[in-house]
């Protein structure tokens, strides 16, 4: 059994190369069929995302899937010169493929560490190869293990916890304050880029009403039209603040436009309802003392940024334990793949061994009893087959179940003890000694 992973990712290749090699939804099916046809007895899966394009090949025999062949086929399918991507290709072999796919599924290899999309993309790649029947026993085991390990790493290390962008952190804070947004009013003060991004995130929560206040009335009307909101004149800022539950402020004012005393009056008019103020402006639009008010949560862009950075640090702390899990699971998975292969070979040998004994004994019996009718010979032959199958049933089941169970304690390359035991008691000799020839 041999494994090969070949492709490009965000580290090895620029976006132009990744785009040239990408397999979109329309291309994926035909591509799988193309590679499967071209590589005959090899199993094929393709993982194609914005940040990586990877071809996974598995050969049940000992013939190594050739890197050059895979590379040529990639070029042929996309109709491009192999030189375009040759220097950007990254390859992994055998156990390296297992570890790589596990790291990818765990999002260790992702551009945004701990992002959640990649696990779904690995699942899609596996499903596509299953639907097209280009995945066999090896890739089934490999991809199912990768999906399990990806989930396990997230659960154990929390690498998917915490948001990494200012806008996402703002959304998390909003969820911590409010339960539902459909009855809430969002006020956008100013028209900064970061404010737009934050509002874009908040809009996913379907707020009931969006108010836009800007010193320039035309810009306010323009922004309100863009966000399905309502423009309000700047001199009605207090009224807008009173109506708002969430404020996103991004003006270019050089000093705070909402002082503590002014907001105290607003909060009184609001009957002290909960308020969330996201002050994205630099310098600040809201006096920091406003955050001391009991029912007001005031977040400056620095607070949001520092939370995002802190979340990233937390995710990075998860890398080491994640790699430990991946190394352990990759070794176990590769062992399992090797044992599956060994079990297949053993069962084949066992069947042939038993067949030869049966045929030899039947031939001796029929030679000693030449008067037996063809019907009697047929009946004896069938009984011999049934006996053989019944005798071999439990050893076969034991071999199959033994390799299905994970064995972390067997070092890679060592034969499974159950397989060795069965080999020994049936006199099949060591693996590779070709005991069949001795019969």
């Amino acid at each position: 059994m041999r494994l090969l992973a070949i492709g490009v990712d965000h580290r090895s290749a620029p976006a132009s190369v990744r785009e040239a090699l990408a397999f979109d939804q329309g291309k994926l099916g035909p591509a799988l069929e193309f590679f499967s046809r071209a590589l005959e007895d090899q199993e094929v899966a393709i993982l194609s995302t914005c940040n990586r394009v990877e071809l996974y090949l598995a050969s049940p025999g000992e013939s190594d899937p050739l890197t050059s062949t895979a590379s040529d086929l990639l070029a042929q399918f996309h109709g491009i010169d192999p030189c375009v991507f040759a220097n950007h290709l990254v390859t992994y072999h055998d156990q390296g493929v297992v570890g790589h796919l596990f790291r990818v599924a765990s999002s260790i290899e992702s551009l945004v560490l701990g992002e959640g999309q990649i696990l779904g993309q690995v699942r899609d790649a596996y499903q596509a190869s299953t639907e097209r029947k280009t995945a066999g026993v090896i890739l089934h085991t490999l991809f199912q293990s990768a999906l399990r390990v990806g989930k396990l790493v997230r659960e154990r290390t929390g690498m998917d916890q915490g948001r990494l962008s200012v806008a996402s952190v703002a959304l998390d804070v909003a969820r911590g304050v409010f339960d539902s947004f459909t009855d809430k009013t969002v006020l956008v003060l100013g028209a900064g880029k970061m404010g737009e991004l934050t509002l874009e995130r908040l809009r996913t929560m379907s707020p009931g009403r969006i108010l836009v206040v800007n010193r320039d009335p035309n810009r306010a009307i323009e922004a309100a039209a863009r966000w399905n909101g309502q423009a309000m004149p700047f001199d009605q800022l207090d009224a807008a603040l009173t109506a708002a539950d969430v404020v996103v402020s991004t003006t270019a004012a050089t000093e705070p436009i909402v002082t503590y005393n002014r907001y105290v009056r607003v909060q009184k008019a609001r009957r002290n309802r909960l308020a969330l103020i996201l002050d994205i402006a630099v310098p600040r639009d809201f006096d920091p003392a406003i955050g001391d008010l009991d029912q007001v949560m005031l977040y400056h862009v620095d607070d949001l940024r520092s939370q995002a950075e802190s979340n990233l640090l937390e995710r990075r702390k998860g890398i080491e334990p994640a790699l430990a899990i991946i190394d352990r699971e990759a070794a176990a998975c590769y062992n399992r793949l090797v044992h599956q292969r060994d079990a297949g070979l053993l069962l084949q040998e066992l069947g042939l061994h038993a067949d030869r004994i049966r045929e030899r004994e039947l031939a001796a019996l029929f030679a000693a009893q030449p008067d037996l009718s063809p019907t009697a010979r047929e009946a004896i032959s069938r009984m011999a087959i049934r006996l053989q199958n019944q005798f071999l049933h439990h050893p076969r089941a034991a071999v199959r179940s033994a390799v299905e169970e994970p064995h972390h304690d067997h070092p890679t390359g060592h034969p499974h003890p159950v397989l060795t035991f069965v080999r020994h008691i049936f006199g099949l000799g060591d693996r590779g000694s070709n005991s069949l020839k001795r019969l």
Partner: protein
Amino acid sequence: MAGVIDRLSILCFAGTYALALVAELSRFVMRSTARWYTAFGLTVLGWVVQTLFLANYAFKRASAAPVSTAFESMMLLSWIVALIGLYWMIRSPRALAVGLFVLPLVLGLVVIAGWFAPRESDWTQWGGTIAFWGTVHGVFLLLGAVFTSVAFFVGLMYLVQARRLKAKKPSRTEIGLPSLEQSERIHRAAITIAFPLLTFGLLIGIVLSFLGTADIEATPVHVIRLTDPKVLSALLMWLVFASLLHARFRPAMRGRNMMVLTIVAFGFMVFAWVGVEALRLRTAHGKVVNTEGTTRP
């Protein structure tokens, strides 16, 4: 001997709740999906054992409703609060740390009931109208206590969440909490329901003290004086609740102040229930008192 066996039974389900709490506390040190199942499973187990204990206790006592003593009422209260906690655990996302707030409360109530709450009350022997109104008094107070307990742990959740948001620091552990708005909404509803229930419960208790005296002594003297510590603590509890309800309509009192006041109200409620007995203060609550003001043996 029966008391020792009772306490051993209580120790069984209290221990199970304690183990569930340990599983919940493991959030601070480890991540695992098994944690939720362990905590939930242990809470269910504790609740089932407690149900069997209460059923057996009710069967032995053969009383109309298990609210005739402070012990029974508190045990029933902890049982209902545990049930509410279980319901919330199922209904909410698994990251929400419901058990972290509900289980200590349940455990505290069980321990207080098992070790400090009086298990006897004279009025149960009186029968007739007094027994009926005594049961009504107990049921109202119990229901009021259920909603007060809900307001209490939701208030705690609010305070922790508000503190976390004010600190502007991301959570280092996987402790999910309801939003401030959700906590505020549940808290408001719980207080609104608890106040009339507690008020009626206390009023019935006051009327009952007159009825009890007339029935037994044929002399209309107060069985419980206003200076009785039980009466004083109940009165204080009611006053805190009244101010809590008043605060509901005062915008300035919204949020943190309301939650702190709820915790104080809950403290007074527990004190009114068992604090007097736990501190061995003289009280005539639930006892037959003669005209000299001393409790009858």
